[in-house]
Protein backbone atom coordinates (compact mmCIF):
# COMPACT_ATOMS: atom_id res chain seq x y z
CA UNK A 1 0.00 0.00 0.00
CA UNK A 2 1.30 3.42 -0.94
CA UNK A 3 1.10 5.92 1.79
CA UNK A 4 0.01 9.46 1.01
CA UNK A 5 2.52 11.85 2.42
CA UNK A 6 1.69 14.94 4.30
CA UNK A 7 2.90 17.82 2.23
CA UNK A 8 2.02 20.67 4.51
CA UNK A 9 1.08 21.03 8.10
CA UNK A 10 0.18 24.27 9.77
CA UNK A 11 2.54 24.76 12.62
CA UNK A 12 4.47 21.61 11.70
CA UNK A 13 5.48 22.25 8.15
CA UNK A 14 7.92 19.75 6.81
CA UNK A 15 7.58 17.21 9.56
CA UNK A 16 7.16 13.55 8.81
CA UNK A 17 3.63 12.69 7.83
CA UNK A 18 0.83 10.37 8.50
CA UNK A 19 -2.24 9.11 6.77
CA UNK A 20 -2.49 5.69 5.24
CA UNK A 21 -4.51 5.83 2.06
CA UNK A 22 -5.73 3.68 -0.79
CA UNK A 23 -3.40 2.46 -3.50
CA UNK A 24 -4.33 5.01 -6.10
CA UNK A 25 -3.84 7.97 -3.78
CA UNK A 26 -0.30 9.09 -3.71
CA UNK A 27 1.30 12.32 -2.80
CA UNK A 28 1.52 15.07 -5.34
CA UNK A 29 4.85 16.56 -4.61
CA UNK A 30 6.91 17.33 -1.62
CA UNK A 31 7.87 20.47 -3.50
CA UNK A 32 4.46 21.80 -2.69
CA UNK A 33 5.77 22.46 0.77
CA UNK A 34 8.02 25.11 -0.70
CA UNK A 35 5.06 26.85 -2.17
CA UNK A 36 3.35 27.24 1.14
CA UNK A 37 3.05 30.71 2.44
CA UNK A 38 3.05 30.45 6.17
CA UNK A 39 2.30 33.41 8.30
CA UNK A 40 2.77 32.22 11.83
CA UNK A 41 1.89 34.27 14.82
CA UNK A 42 3.41 33.71 18.21
CA UNK A 43 1.02 32.21 20.73
CA UNK A 44 -1.02 34.91 22.39
CA UNK A 45 -3.62 35.04 25.07
CA UNK A 46 -7.16 35.12 23.74
CA UNK A 47 -8.60 38.57 23.34
CA UNK A 48 -5.21 40.20 23.02
CA UNK A 49 -4.42 40.73 19.35
CA UNK A 50 -1.06 42.34 20.19
CA UNK A 51 0.16 39.40 22.15
CA UNK A 52 0.56 41.43 25.33
CA UNK A 53 -0.20 40.33 28.86
CA UNK A 54 -3.43 38.46 29.24
CA UNK A 55 -6.32 40.36 30.74
CA UNK A 56 -7.18 37.36 32.87
CA UNK A 57 -5.01 34.51 33.97
CA UNK A 58 -7.65 32.00 32.92
CA UNK A 59 -7.85 33.13 29.28
CA UNK A 60 -6.66 30.37 26.95
CA UNK A 61 -3.52 30.63 24.88
CA UNK A 62 -4.27 31.15 21.21
CA UNK A 63 -2.03 30.36 18.26
CA UNK A 64 -3.38 31.74 14.98
CA UNK A 65 -1.76 30.80 11.70
CA UNK A 66 -2.60 31.44 8.10
CA UNK A 67 -1.51 29.35 5.16
CA UNK A 68 -2.11 29.59 1.44
CA UNK A 69 -1.74 26.21 -0.21
CA UNK A 70 -1.87 25.35 -3.90
CA UNK A 71 -4.92 23.36 -4.96
CA UNK A 72 -4.52 23.06 -8.70
CA UNK A 73 -6.79 20.33 -10.01
CA UNK A 74 -8.55 19.94 -6.69
CA UNK A 75 -12.02 18.45 -6.96
CA UNK A 76 -12.84 17.69 -3.35
CA UNK A 77 -11.77 19.32 -0.11
CA UNK A 78 -12.41 17.25 2.96
CA UNK A 79 -12.06 18.76 6.42
CA UNK A 80 -12.11 16.58 9.51
CA UNK A 81 -11.95 18.72 12.61
CA UNK A 82 -13.21 17.02 15.74
CA UNK A 83 -11.25 19.58 17.75
CA UNK A 84 -13.38 22.63 16.99
CA UNK A 85 -15.27 24.68 14.44
CA UNK A 86 -15.08 24.79 10.65
CA UNK A 87 -16.10 27.65 8.37
CA UNK A 88 -15.78 27.36 4.59
CA UNK A 89 -16.29 30.04 1.98
CA UNK A 90 -16.04 29.58 -1.75
CA UNK A 91 -14.20 32.81 -2.37
CA UNK A 92 -10.64 31.76 -3.12
CA UNK A 93 -9.05 32.06 -6.54
CA UNK A 94 -8.90 28.84 -8.58
CA UNK A 95 -5.95 26.71 -7.57
CA UNK A 96 -5.58 28.12 -4.06
CA UNK A 97 -6.87 27.35 -0.62
CA UNK A 98 -6.52 29.78 2.25
CA UNK A 99 -6.49 28.16 5.66
CA UNK A 100 -6.62 30.03 8.93
CA UNK A 101 -6.20 27.82 11.95
CA UNK A 102 -6.75 29.04 15.47
CA UNK A 103 -5.50 26.74 18.17
CA UNK A 104 -6.44 27.37 21.77
CA UNK A 105 -5.46 25.67 24.99
CA UNK A 106 -5.04 26.41 28.66
CA UNK A 107 -1.24 26.25 28.52
CA UNK A 108 1.65 26.14 26.08
CA UNK A 109 2.23 22.43 26.58
CA UNK A 110 -1.34 21.57 25.58
CA UNK A 111 -1.20 24.08 22.72
CA UNK A 112 1.90 22.44 21.30
CA UNK A 113 0.07 19.13 21.10
CA UNK A 114 -2.62 20.41 18.71
CA UNK A 115 -1.80 19.79 15.05
CA UNK A 116 -3.29 20.64 11.67
CA UNK A 117 -2.47 18.43 8.70
CA UNK A 118 -2.87 19.23 5.05
CA UNK A 119 -2.62 16.39 2.51
CA UNK A 120 -3.08 16.60 -1.24
CA UNK A 121 -3.69 13.51 -3.36
CA UNK A 122 -3.26 12.96 -7.06
CA UNK A 123 -6.92 11.97 -7.24
CA UNK A 124 -7.82 15.64 -6.73
CA UNK A 125 -8.79 15.16 -3.11
CA UNK A 126 -7.40 17.51 -0.50
CA UNK A 127 -7.67 16.58 3.11
CA UNK A 128 -7.29 18.89 6.06
CA UNK A 129 -7.57 17.36 9.47
CA UNK A 130 -6.71 18.15 13.04
CA UNK A 131 -5.16 15.93 15.67
CA UNK A 132 -4.04 16.01 19.23
CA UNK A 133 -0.82 14.37 20.33
CA UNK A 134 -1.44 11.85 23.09
CA UNK A 135 1.18 9.48 24.37
CA UNK A 136 3.38 9.91 21.34
CA UNK A 137 0.58 9.33 18.84
CA UNK A 138 -1.50 11.87 16.97
CA UNK A 139 -5.19 11.22 17.33
CA UNK A 140 -8.37 12.75 16.03
CA UNK A 141 -10.36 13.46 19.19
CA UNK A 142 -13.13 15.83 20.17
CA UNK A 143 -12.10 18.60 22.53
CA UNK A 144 -14.13 21.33 24.16
CA UNK A 145 -12.01 23.71 26.25
CA UNK A 146 -8.95 23.25 24.08
CA UNK A 147 -9.21 22.90 20.33
CA UNK A 148 -8.64 24.14 16.82
CA UNK A 149 -10.96 26.26 14.71
CA UNK A 150 -10.45 26.22 10.96
CA UNK A 151 -11.54 28.94 8.55
CA UNK A 152 -11.09 28.13 4.89
CA UNK A 153 -11.48 29.93 1.62
CA UNK A 154 -11.67 27.43 -1.20
CA UNK A 155 -12.24 27.77 -4.94
CA UNK A 156 -16.01 27.82 -5.47
CA UNK A 157 -15.98 24.91 -7.91
CA UNK A 158 -14.63 22.25 -5.52
CA UNK A 159 -16.92 19.92 -3.61
CA UNK A 160 -16.60 20.22 0.14
CA UNK A 161 -17.05 17.70 2.92
CA UNK A 162 -16.60 18.82 6.52
CA UNK A 163 -16.99 17.10 9.82
CA UNK A 164 -16.84 18.45 13.36
CA UNK A 165 -17.76 17.02 16.71
CA UNK A 166 -18.88 19.80 19.04
CA UNK A 167 -18.00 22.77 16.86
CA UNK A 168 -20.25 24.68 14.49
CA UNK A 169 -19.80 24.02 10.79
CA UNK A 170 -20.78 26.41 8.02
CA UNK A 171 -20.39 26.64 4.26
CA UNK A 172 -21.20 29.39 1.77
CA UNK A 173 -20.44 30.46 -1.77
CA UNK A 174 -19.83 26.93 -3.04
CA UNK A 175 -20.69 25.75 -6.55
CA UNK A 176 -20.19 21.99 -6.33
CA UNK A 177 -22.22 21.06 -3.28
CA UNK A 178 -21.41 20.42 0.36
CA UNK A 179 -21.67 17.64 2.85
CA UNK A 180 -21.54 18.70 6.49
CA UNK A 181 -21.58 16.49 9.55
CA UNK A 182 -21.45 17.38 13.21
CA UNK A 183 -22.34 15.79 16.48
CA UNK A 184 -23.04 18.82 18.62
CA UNK A 185 -22.42 21.93 16.53
CA UNK A 186 -24.79 24.14 14.60
CA UNK A 187 -24.94 23.78 10.83
CA UNK A 188 -25.19 26.80 8.54
CA UNK A 189 -25.33 26.66 4.76
CA UNK A 190 -25.99 29.51 2.37
CA UNK A 191 -25.48 30.36 -1.27
CA UNK A 192 -24.58 26.87 -2.45
CA UNK A 193 -25.06 25.30 -5.86
CA UNK A 194 -25.05 21.51 -5.98
CA UNK A 195 -26.26 18.84 -3.59
CA UNK A 196 -26.28 19.50 0.13
CA UNK A 197 -26.20 16.69 2.69
CA UNK A 198 -26.09 17.09 6.46
CA UNK A 199 -25.97 14.81 9.49
CA UNK A 200 -26.29 16.12 13.01
CA UNK A 201 -27.01 14.91 16.51
CA UNK A 202 -27.97 18.27 17.99
CA UNK A 203 -27.56 21.97 17.47
CA UNK A 204 -29.99 23.06 14.76
CA UNK A 205 -29.54 23.75 11.07
CA UNK A 206 -30.01 26.80 8.87
CA UNK A 207 -29.99 26.21 5.14
CA UNK A 208 -30.64 29.03 2.69
CA UNK A 209 -30.18 29.83 -0.98
CA UNK A 210 -29.34 26.37 -2.29
CA UNK A 211 -29.74 25.31 -5.92
CA UNK A 212 -29.58 21.53 -5.76
CA UNK A 213 -30.91 18.52 -3.90
CA UNK A 214 -31.01 18.96 -0.14
CA UNK A 215 -30.90 16.08 2.32
CA UNK A 216 -30.90 17.10 5.99
CA UNK A 217 -30.77 14.73 8.92
CA UNK A 218 -30.88 15.66 12.60
CA UNK A 219 -31.82 14.25 15.96
CA UNK A 220 -32.24 17.33 18.19
CA UNK A 221 -32.63 20.94 17.08
CA UNK A 222 -34.74 23.06 14.78
CA UNK A 223 -34.29 23.28 11.03
CA UNK A 224 -34.73 26.51 9.15
CA UNK A 225 -34.92 26.20 5.36
CA UNK A 226 -35.26 29.15 3.01
CA UNK A 227 -34.96 29.83 -0.69
CA UNK A 228 -34.22 26.32 -1.93
CA UNK A 229 -34.54 25.21 -5.53
CA UNK A 230 -33.45 21.97 -7.12
CA UNK A 231 -34.88 18.49 -7.46
CA UNK A 232 -35.80 17.54 -3.93
CA UNK A 233 -35.70 18.56 -0.32
CA UNK A 234 -35.72 15.84 2.32
CA UNK A 235 -35.42 16.99 5.93
CA UNK A 236 -35.79 14.72 8.93
CA UNK A 237 -35.47 15.55 12.61
CA UNK A 238 -36.59 13.64 15.67
CA UNK A 239 -36.85 16.34 18.31
CA UNK A 240 -37.22 19.74 16.69
CA UNK A 241 -39.36 21.85 14.40
CA UNK A 242 -38.94 22.47 10.69
CA UNK A 243 -39.71 25.85 9.19
CA UNK A 244 -39.45 25.99 5.40
CA UNK A 245 -40.06 29.00 3.20
CA UNK A 246 -39.79 29.59 -0.52
CA UNK A 247 -39.04 26.00 -1.53
CA UNK A 248 -39.04 25.51 -5.29
CA UNK A 249 -38.26 21.79 -5.50
CA UNK A 250 -40.54 19.19 -7.07
CA UNK A 251 -40.29 16.85 -4.09
CA UNK A 252 -40.45 18.21 -0.56
CA UNK A 253 -40.49 15.91 2.45
CA UNK A 254 -40.31 17.45 5.91
CA UNK A 255 -40.62 15.00 8.81
CA UNK A 256 -40.33 15.58 12.55
CA UNK A 257 -41.36 13.39 15.45
CA UNK A 258 -41.98 15.85 18.27
CA UNK A 259 -41.90 19.29 16.65
CA UNK A 260 -43.96 21.37 14.29
CA UNK A 261 -43.70 21.55 10.51
CA UNK A 262 -44.41 24.80 8.68
CA UNK A 263 -44.16 25.26 4.92
CA UNK A 264 -44.74 28.69 3.38
CA UNK A 265 -44.43 29.29 -0.34
CA UNK A 266 -45.66 28.89 -3.86
CA UNK A 267 -47.14 25.51 -4.75
CA UNK A 268 -45.51 24.11 -7.85
CA UNK A 269 -47.65 22.17 -10.33
CA UNK A 270 -47.07 18.41 -10.20
CA UNK A 271 -44.82 18.72 -7.20
CA UNK A 272 -45.10 16.37 -4.21
CA UNK A 273 -45.23 17.78 -0.68
CA UNK A 274 -45.06 15.35 2.22
CA UNK A 275 -45.18 17.04 5.62
CA UNK A 276 -45.37 14.87 8.71
CA UNK A 277 -45.18 15.24 12.46
CA UNK A 278 -46.02 12.69 15.08
CA UNK A 279 -46.70 14.98 18.05
CA UNK A 280 -46.68 18.51 16.62
CA UNK A 281 -48.85 20.52 14.26
CA UNK A 282 -48.39 20.61 10.51
CA UNK A 283 -49.02 23.98 8.88
CA UNK A 284 -49.23 24.21 5.09
CA UNK A 285 -49.34 27.86 4.04
CA UNK A 286 -49.38 28.25 0.24
CA UNK A 287 -48.76 31.71 -1.11
CA UNK A 288 -51.01 33.90 -3.21
CA UNK A 289 -53.04 32.01 -5.78
CA UNK A 290 -51.95 28.40 -5.33
CA UNK A 291 -51.86 25.88 -8.12
CA UNK A 292 -54.41 23.06 -7.82
CA UNK A 293 -53.47 20.21 -5.54
CA UNK A 294 -54.72 16.83 -4.43
CA UNK A 295 -54.80 16.60 -0.65
CA UNK A 296 -54.28 13.57 1.54
CA UNK A 297 -54.32 14.33 5.24
CA UNK A 298 -54.82 12.89 8.68
CA UNK A 299 -54.58 14.43 12.13
CA UNK A 300 -55.77 14.03 15.71
CA UNK A 301 -57.85 17.20 15.44
CA UNK A 302 -60.23 18.18 12.63
CA UNK A 303 -58.56 19.79 9.63
CA UNK A 304 -58.26 23.55 10.20
CA UNK A 305 -58.75 25.34 6.89
CA UNK A 306 -60.84 27.90 5.07
CA UNK A 307 -59.54 26.72 1.69
CA UNK A 308 -62.36 25.47 -0.57
CA UNK A 309 -61.81 21.72 -0.96
CA UNK A 310 -63.75 19.49 -3.31
CA UNK A 311 -64.59 15.81 -3.35
CA UNK A 312 -63.72 15.22 0.30
CA UNK A 313 -63.84 11.52 1.20
CA UNK A 314 -62.32 9.24 3.82
CA UNK A 315 -59.83 6.54 2.96
CA UNK A 316 -59.23 4.71 6.25
CA UNK A 317 -57.83 7.26 8.65
CA UNK A 318 -56.93 9.59 5.78
CA UNK A 319 -59.04 12.36 4.32
CA UNK A 320 -58.73 12.96 0.60
CA UNK A 321 -59.86 16.08 -1.25
CA UNK A 322 -58.89 18.40 -4.10
CA UNK A 323 -58.19 22.07 -4.30
CA UNK A 324 -59.07 23.23 -7.79
CA UNK A 325 -57.62 26.71 -7.72
CA UNK A 326 -59.29 30.03 -8.40
CA UNK A 327 -58.70 29.87 -12.14
CA UNK A 328 -58.70 27.01 -14.58
CA UNK A 329 -55.40 25.22 -14.19
CA UNK A 330 -52.93 25.89 -17.02
CA UNK A 331 -51.07 22.71 -16.05
CA UNK A 332 -52.51 19.24 -16.58
CA UNK A 333 -51.16 17.86 -13.30
CA UNK A 334 -52.07 19.01 -9.84
CA UNK A 335 -49.60 18.92 -7.01
CA UNK A 336 -49.88 16.17 -4.40
CA UNK A 337 -49.99 17.41 -0.82
CA UNK A 338 -49.75 14.91 2.06
CA UNK A 339 -50.12 16.33 5.55
CA UNK A 340 -50.05 14.14 8.63
CA UNK A 341 -49.97 14.70 12.37
CA UNK A 342 -50.70 11.72 14.61
CA UNK A 343 -51.21 13.65 17.85
CA UNK A 344 -51.48 17.26 16.62
CA UNK A 345 -53.47 19.22 14.08
CA UNK A 346 -53.17 20.08 10.41
CA UNK A 347 -53.68 23.65 9.21
CA UNK A 348 -54.01 24.83 5.60
CA UNK A 349 -54.14 28.59 5.08
CA UNK A 350 -53.57 30.51 1.89
CA UNK A 351 -51.21 33.42 2.62
CA UNK A 352 -51.50 36.74 0.82
CA UNK A 353 -48.13 37.39 -0.78
CA UNK A 354 -47.53 40.68 1.02
CA UNK A 355 -48.29 39.15 4.42
CA UNK A 356 -45.97 36.25 3.74
CA UNK A 357 -43.19 38.56 2.73
CA UNK A 358 -43.50 40.32 6.07
CA UNK A 359 -43.08 37.08 8.04
Amino acid at each position, binding site marked *: *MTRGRQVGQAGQVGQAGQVG*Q*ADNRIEISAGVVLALLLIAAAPARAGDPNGGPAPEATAPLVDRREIVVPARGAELVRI*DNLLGRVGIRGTARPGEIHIVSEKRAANAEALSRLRVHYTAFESGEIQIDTRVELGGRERSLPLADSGVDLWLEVPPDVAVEAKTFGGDVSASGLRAGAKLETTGGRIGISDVRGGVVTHQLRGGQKVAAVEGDVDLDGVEGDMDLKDLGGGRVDARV*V*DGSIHAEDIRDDFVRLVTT*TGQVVLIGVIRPAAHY*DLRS*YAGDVRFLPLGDPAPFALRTRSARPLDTAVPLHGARHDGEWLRAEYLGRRPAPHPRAALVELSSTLGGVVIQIQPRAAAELQ
Partner: protein
Amino acid sequence: MAIRDPRSCAHSAETLSAFVDGDLSGTEAQAVRTHAAECPRCTVSIAELSALVTAARGLERPEPPPSLWPAVEGAMARHDRPWWLSLRLFGSGALAGAAAVSVVALGLTSWRTHRAAAVVVAPVAPVVASVDPLLNEAEAEFASAAAAYERSIEKLRGLLEREEPRWNPAERARCAERLAQLDEAIASSRELAHRTPGDTVGNEQLFAAYQQKIAFLAEAVHRGGTFHEGEPPR
Protein backbone atom coordinates in the same frame (compact mmCIF):
# COMPACT_ATOMS: atom_id res chain seq x y z
CA MET B 1 -33.48 1.86 6.21
CA ALA B 2 -33.19 -1.67 4.90
CA ILE B 3 -32.07 -4.84 6.58
CA ARG B 4 -29.51 -6.17 4.17
CA ASP B 5 -28.65 -9.69 3.32
CA PRO B 6 -25.15 -10.00 4.75
CA ARG B 7 -24.12 -11.99 1.69
CA SER B 8 -24.81 -8.89 -0.38
CA CYS B 9 -22.64 -6.62 1.76
CA ALA B 10 -20.50 -4.46 -0.47
CA HIS B 11 -17.64 -4.41 2.01
CA SER B 12 -15.32 -7.35 2.37
CA ALA B 13 -13.53 -8.31 5.54
CA GLU B 14 -10.40 -6.69 4.08
CA THR B 15 -12.21 -3.40 3.56
CA LEU B 16 -13.64 -3.45 7.08
CA SER B 17 -10.20 -4.25 8.45
CA ALA B 18 -8.67 -1.35 6.53
CA PHE B 19 -11.45 0.89 7.86
CA VAL B 20 -10.71 -0.07 11.46
CA ASP B 21 -6.99 0.46 10.86
CA GLY B 22 -7.69 3.93 9.48
CA ASP B 23 -6.18 2.97 6.13
CA LEU B 24 -9.14 4.01 3.98
CA SER B 25 -9.45 7.41 2.39
CA GLY B 26 -12.09 9.76 3.74
CA THR B 27 -14.50 8.88 0.93
CA GLU B 28 -14.04 5.16 1.40
CA ALA B 29 -14.32 5.42 5.18
CA GLN B 30 -17.51 7.43 4.84
CA ALA B 31 -18.95 4.78 2.50
CA VAL B 32 -18.22 2.11 5.11
CA ARG B 33 -19.75 4.23 7.88
CA THR B 34 -22.88 4.82 5.80
CA HIS B 35 -23.19 1.14 5.06
CA ALA B 36 -22.54 0.09 8.66
CA ALA B 37 -25.27 2.44 9.84
CA GLU B 38 -27.72 0.21 7.98
CA CYS B 39 -26.10 -3.17 8.40
CA PRO B 40 -26.03 -4.71 11.89
CA ARG B 41 -23.75 -7.52 10.71
CA CYS B 42 -21.07 -5.12 9.49
CA THR B 43 -21.49 -3.08 12.68
CA VAL B 44 -20.72 -6.18 14.72
CA SER B 45 -17.81 -7.12 12.40
CA ILE B 46 -16.32 -3.67 12.81
CA ALA B 47 -16.77 -3.91 16.58
CA GLU B 48 -14.96 -7.25 16.62
CA LEU B 49 -12.15 -5.98 14.43
CA SER B 50 -11.83 -2.90 16.65
CA ALA B 51 -11.45 -5.25 19.62
CA LEU B 52 -8.62 -7.04 17.88
CA VAL B 53 -6.91 -3.79 16.98
CA THR B 54 -7.32 -2.54 20.53
CA ALA B 55 -5.86 -5.76 21.86
CA ALA B 56 -2.99 -5.55 19.39
CA ARG B 57 -2.28 -1.96 20.37
CA GLY B 58 -1.80 -3.13 23.91
CA LEU B 59 0.89 -5.47 22.65
CA GLU B 60 2.81 -3.05 20.49
CA ARG B 61 4.87 -1.53 23.26
CA PRO B 62 5.51 -3.87 26.15
CA GLU B 63 6.80 -1.77 29.01
CA PRO B 64 10.30 -2.91 29.90
CA PRO B 65 11.13 -3.09 33.57
CA PRO B 66 12.77 0.14 34.77
CA SER B 67 15.98 -1.72 35.62
CA LEU B 68 16.47 -3.07 32.07
CA TRP B 69 18.26 -0.15 30.46
CA PRO B 70 20.63 0.56 33.36
CA ALA B 71 21.57 -3.11 33.31
CA VAL B 72 22.22 -3.10 29.55
CA GLU B 73 24.09 0.21 29.80
CA GLY B 74 26.21 -1.23 32.53
CA ALA B 75 27.05 -4.25 30.41
CA MET B 76 28.02 -2.02 27.47
CA ALA B 77 30.20 0.19 29.64
CA ARG B 78 31.98 -2.86 30.90
CA HIS B 79 32.60 -3.95 27.30
CA ASP B 80 34.44 -0.66 26.59
CA ARG B 81 36.79 -1.01 29.51
CA PRO B 82 40.45 -2.11 29.12
CA TRP B 83 40.93 -5.84 29.18
CA TRP B 84 42.92 -5.70 32.38
CA LEU B 85 40.11 -3.76 34.13
CA SER B 86 37.63 -6.29 32.83
CA LEU B 87 39.70 -9.04 34.24
CA ARG B 88 39.87 -7.27 37.54
CA LEU B 89 36.14 -6.66 37.65
CA PHE B 90 35.23 -9.96 36.05
CA GLY B 91 33.08 -11.04 38.92
CA SER B 92 30.76 -8.03 39.12
CA GLY B 93 30.73 -7.50 35.30
CA ALA B 94 29.61 -11.04 34.71
CA LEU B 95 26.87 -10.55 37.24
CA ALA B 96 25.65 -7.38 35.53
CA GLY B 97 25.67 -9.06 32.11
CA ALA B 98 23.87 -12.07 33.47
CA ALA B 99 21.32 -9.81 35.09
CA ALA B 100 20.79 -7.94 31.82
CA VAL B 101 20.34 -11.14 29.85
CA SER B 102 18.00 -12.49 32.50
CA VAL B 103 15.92 -9.33 32.47
CA VAL B 104 15.69 -9.35 28.66
CA ALA B 105 14.76 -13.02 28.72
CA LEU B 106 12.17 -12.39 31.40
CA GLY B 107 10.83 -9.45 29.42
CA LEU B 108 10.52 -11.55 26.27
CA THR B 109 8.88 -14.37 28.16
CA SER B 110 6.50 -11.97 29.76
CA TRP B 111 5.75 -10.34 26.38
CA ARG B 112 5.15 -13.73 24.77
CA THR B 113 2.92 -14.83 27.63
CA HIS B 114 1.02 -11.58 27.46
CA ARG B 115 0.64 -11.92 23.72
CA ALA B 116 -0.60 -15.51 23.92
CA ALA B 117 -3.02 -14.62 26.67
CA ALA B 118 -4.33 -11.62 24.74
CA VAL B 119 -4.91 -13.63 21.58
CA VAL B 120 -6.77 -16.34 23.43
CA VAL B 121 -8.63 -14.09 25.82
CA ALA B 122 -10.12 -11.23 23.83
CA PRO B 123 -10.97 -8.82 26.67
CA VAL B 124 -8.48 -6.03 27.11
CA ALA B 125 -7.56 -4.51 30.43
CA PRO B 126 -10.32 -2.20 31.65
CA VAL B 127 -10.02 1.52 31.14
CA VAL B 128 -7.95 3.24 33.78
CA ALA B 129 -8.81 6.81 34.68
CA SER B 130 -6.70 9.12 32.49
CA VAL B 131 -4.48 11.79 33.93
CA ASP B 132 -4.16 13.61 30.61
CA PRO B 133 -6.52 16.60 30.66
CA LEU B 134 -6.95 16.54 26.86
CA LEU B 135 -7.91 12.89 26.93
CA ASN B 136 -10.34 13.63 29.74
CA GLU B 137 -11.84 16.42 27.62
CA ALA B 138 -12.32 13.99 24.75
CA GLU B 139 -13.89 11.36 26.99
CA ALA B 140 -16.28 13.98 28.39
CA GLU B 141 -17.29 14.97 24.85
CA PHE B 142 -17.94 11.35 23.89
CA ALA B 143 -19.95 10.80 27.08
CA SER B 144 -22.02 13.92 26.49
CA ALA B 145 -22.90 12.84 22.95
CA ALA B 146 -23.76 9.32 24.10
CA ALA B 147 -26.05 10.79 26.77
CA ALA B 148 -27.81 12.91 24.12
CA TYR B 149 -28.39 9.83 21.97
CA GLU B 150 -29.71 7.94 25.00
CA ARG B 151 -32.12 10.77 25.81
CA SER B 152 -33.51 10.77 22.30
CA ILE B 153 -33.91 7.01 22.39
CA GLU B 154 -35.74 7.22 25.71
CA LYS B 155 -38.06 9.86 24.33
CA LEU B 156 -38.83 7.75 21.27
CA ARG B 157 -39.32 4.64 23.40
CA GLY B 158 -41.95 6.58 25.36
CA LEU B 159 -43.77 7.49 22.14
CA LEU B 160 -43.51 3.93 20.86
CA GLU B 161 -45.06 2.57 24.04
CA ARG B 162 -48.04 4.76 23.30
CA GLU B 163 -48.36 3.32 19.79
CA GLU B 164 -47.63 -0.36 20.42
CA PRO B 165 -50.95 -1.29 22.06
CA ARG B 166 -52.62 -0.55 18.71
CA TRP B 167 -50.50 -3.14 16.96
CA ASN B 168 -51.23 -6.81 16.63
CA PRO B 169 -49.04 -9.35 18.52
CA ALA B 170 -47.02 -10.27 15.41
CA GLU B 171 -46.15 -6.64 14.77
CA ARG B 172 -45.12 -6.14 18.38
CA ALA B 173 -42.96 -9.27 18.27
CA ARG B 174 -41.27 -8.14 15.06
CA CYS B 175 -40.54 -4.74 16.56
CA ALA B 176 -39.22 -6.28 19.79
CA GLU B 177 -36.94 -8.62 17.83
CA ARG B 178 -35.49 -5.78 15.80
CA LEU B 179 -34.98 -3.65 18.89
CA ALA B 180 -33.18 -6.53 20.58
CA GLN B 181 -30.79 -6.74 17.59
CA LEU B 182 -30.16 -3.02 17.76
CA ASP B 183 -29.64 -3.15 21.54
CA GLU B 184 -27.13 -5.93 21.05
CA ALA B 185 -25.21 -3.86 18.50
CA ILE B 186 -25.24 -0.89 20.89
CA ALA B 187 -24.08 -2.99 23.84
CA SER B 188 -21.14 -4.52 21.96
CA SER B 189 -20.17 -1.15 20.45
CA ARG B 190 -20.38 0.51 23.86
CA GLU B 191 -18.21 -2.14 25.47
CA LEU B 192 -15.54 -1.67 22.82
CA ALA B 193 -15.71 2.11 22.88
CA HIS B 194 -15.17 2.10 26.64
CA ARG B 195 -12.21 -0.25 26.63
CA THR B 196 -9.70 2.30 25.41
CA PRO B 197 -9.89 5.96 26.43
CA GLY B 198 -10.29 8.25 23.45
CA ASP B 199 -11.22 5.53 20.98
CA THR B 200 -12.73 7.64 18.20
CA VAL B 201 -13.47 4.73 15.86
CA GLY B 202 -15.13 2.80 18.67
CA ASN B 203 -17.25 5.77 19.65
CA GLU B 204 -18.20 6.46 16.04
CA GLN B 205 -19.43 2.89 15.81
CA LEU B 206 -21.39 3.35 19.02
CA PHE B 207 -22.96 6.53 17.66
CA ALA B 208 -23.79 4.78 14.37
CA ALA B 209 -25.55 2.07 16.37
CA TYR B 210 -27.49 4.72 18.31
CA GLN B 211 -28.46 6.42 15.04
CA GLN B 212 -29.67 3.12 13.65
CA LYS B 213 -31.93 2.62 16.64
CA ILE B 214 -33.21 6.21 16.55
CA ALA B 215 -34.06 5.87 12.84
CA PHE B 216 -35.89 2.62 13.51
CA LEU B 217 -37.84 4.01 16.46
CA ALA B 218 -38.77 7.19 14.59
CA GLU B 219 -40.05 5.17 11.63
CA ALA B 220 -41.98 2.83 13.90
CA VAL B 221 -43.54 5.75 15.76
CA HIS B 222 -44.52 7.50 12.53
CA ARG B 223 -45.80 4.56 10.57
CA GLY B 224 -47.11 2.14 13.17
CA GLY B 225 -46.59 -1.60 13.38
CA THR B 226 -47.24 -2.36 9.76
CA PHE B 227 -44.18 -0.65 8.35
CA HIS B 228 -41.14 -2.42 7.03
CA GLU B 229 -37.75 -0.79 7.08
CA GLY B 230 -36.80 0.53 3.70
CA GLU B 231 -40.36 0.89 2.49
CA PRO B 232 -41.37 4.14 0.89
CA PRO B 233 -43.72 6.19 3.07
CA ARG B 234 -47.33 5.28 2.97
